[in-house]
């Protein structure tokens, strides 16, 4: 059975690249262009992974992560944050909001899959 992943990023390029990579890895990708858009895509379906950018218009990644964690059905879903801000405080804030892990941009598909392997059971 294929796994489902939600990708939230305001950059269409990133959405396309991440979705494509995930699809190759056997995920069914859903996408959202910002936090709010991402939340709108969560309709209670089974989800195996969420990947979100942090700096986005409308609703940023941290608020999105908090909102996801506030929902019972997504309490334990692995959430990876995409960030170029490698500063400790961004990661700490993300973790505090409920993120599982992070991936520092720029990354390539291989690195993405490697990090996903750390948080999603094969």
């Amino acid at each position, binding site marked *: 059975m294929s796994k489902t992943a939600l990708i939230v990023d305001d950059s269409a390029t990133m959405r396309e*690249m991440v979705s494509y*990579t995930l699809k190759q890895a056997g995920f069914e990708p859903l996408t959202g262009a910002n936090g709010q858009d991402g939340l709108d895509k969560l309709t209670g379906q089974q989800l195996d992974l969420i990947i979100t950018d942090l700096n986005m218009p409308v609703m940023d990644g941290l608020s999105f992560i908090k909102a996801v964690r506030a929902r019972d059905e997504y309490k334990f879903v692995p959430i990876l944050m995409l960030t170029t801000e490698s500063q400790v405080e961004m990661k700490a804030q993300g973790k505090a909001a409920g993120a599982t892990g992070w991936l520092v941009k720029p990354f390539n598909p291989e690195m993405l899959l490697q990090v996903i392997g750390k948080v999603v059971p094969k």
Partner: protein
Amino acid sequence: MQIDLKRFHETFFEEAEEHLGTIEAGLLSLTEQGADPELLNTIFRSAHSIKGAAGSFGFNELARLTHVMENVLDRLRSGKRSPDEALTQHLLRASDTLRELVAATRKGEAASVPTDVVLAELSAELADGAAPATGEGAPRSAAGAGSPGEVVYHIVFEPEPDLFRQGQDVFLLLRDLAEVGTVLAVECRRDRLPPLAEMDAETCYVGWDLRVRTARPEDDLHDVFMFVEGSCKLEISAEAATGATSAGAPVTTEPGAIREDRRAGPQRRADSTSIRVPTEKVDALINLVGELVISQAMVNQAVSGYSLTPELEEALSVVQRSTRELQEQVMAIRMLPIGTVFNRFPRLVHDLSAQLGKRVRLESEGAETELDKSVIEPLGDPLTHLIRNSVDHGIEDPEQRIGAGKPEEGVVTLRAYHEGGNVLIEVSDDGKGLDRDRIRAKAISQGLVRDDVALTDDEMYALIFAPGFSTATVVSDVSGRGVGMDVVKRNVEALNGEISVRSVVGRGSRFRIRLPLTLAILDGLSVRLGRDTFILPLLSIRQSVRPEPSDIKTVLGSRGEIFLLRGEQLPLLRLSRLFHTAGTVEDPTRGIVVVTETDGRRFGVLVDDVIGQQQVVVKNIERNYRKIDAVMGATILGDGRVAFIVDVAELHRVATRRRQSDDEMEHVVGESAVAAIAAAQEDGA
């Protein structure tokens, strides 16, 4: 897994263009609004987005430049620096370079764009304060010892209770650990485990003591725990004597460094919220739907003579309705907001006003107004010219404005809105308005009007669109050289649009462009000439009249004829003579005069009969055959016949020219035209 990043390049470049627009517009507002946090965030985000993706694709020049821009913006955002004119200029220059760099990278010539100067400028901005963090994403230097043989590590891993609420899976960690080395012993720490009745299934109560033997560096062990290091007690210590590396303190690590990874991959995946499709595909679809509309009309016409069963009649009407809807939906795909053109103007106005020593603000309304992509793109040039003109000639110098009791800052307004099936775009300014006397004097000196002719305001203003007409007393650096308003007018007319101007002395001018929503469909009036049908664009038609004998006058033996429309004298053109159609009405009183207007001049076109108003799908003739005078395209009628769409503006020019010389007009009705259309259809399908 094989993933070729090239497949994302096109998306990246398109997106980068959009971000460039945002950055530029943002930087310009920065001067006015100051360090508005939301504005800075928006600019930052755009630079940030370009950087992130550029890095992934190995566009290192782009990544470097956006990185430095981002650092400067970050300092603005954090309030360590306030935006002054110099800084804004540096950032604008950087964004120019960025634009060049994006274009060059697209062509694979990134190296041809020098970035040293802007990088140096920006770095200087950064240097006069605390040095920011740079080089993020750089390869992490391997801390700790290399791999001098196997080492046994003792690991204490005691997660915090809410570990699961971060989506962590402890088993994955243990599994990863087993991949780094050989797990010699695992012991579960259960001392925190409460009695079952008090246990919360969502809380983590246990910890582990592990012994792992590995030849890999200690950092690899930390990497396993990288996502949980902040939320657990973690101690990693070497047991054996080799490489007494430190343990204990949590270390923040990053998952990796930039690596080149370009490999070939198969199919393209679609984004579930939107998809990017090459324009050709959409064009092919539009063309096909056009064919469908025509075929549908042919079916309707073919069955019109028969009495149909109710079922068939119902089915036909459903097909007709669905076809119309399909056509509308398909046309909508190619619609883009005009904001994509408007975006470039804040910069233009900023630069121009600085250059001219004026203070001008650009306001825009209706940027979300949609029109066909094929119309939007060619609009850039005429609009640029109009705005240039408004800033240069319309808006006065600050002193003059103050003298006239106006605010020092002039306003140029760009406005777009829908009206009927058209889009109207206005460029207006609150400047000095057109100078009637000067236009008149100039027109007389150029022989455009005789000095004894009184002109209405509209006629007078229409003169500025005449070729070679320019009233600028001093040819300024900004406008007044090269293209004139005649070119603007031609550009607009090439889009089946029209342009007009209103002006009030001392109050300002307003240029208004009226455009069809799309070039693919045209509202036309079908007229009959003998056995042929022609289409006249509805936009240029004012009315249709059946003339009385007294309404037609012949001028002095020439072929020139005059049609009297309630006393107004209009030149009369016989379409049948221009197109050499056979079997047409010779007596004007038995035909219809269609009154058309172009360039603010009206003239009558004599046709046999008016069939009716209809939307037609425009087929290009030029691309498939060759240019035919006074014909802008062709369409296929419901009965399968081809009809030419008359270019009214050109018709007027051709007719005037023809009256002077006796050149025969191009005559291509019949076989060869049908061949041309057939070629057009094949080409488009």
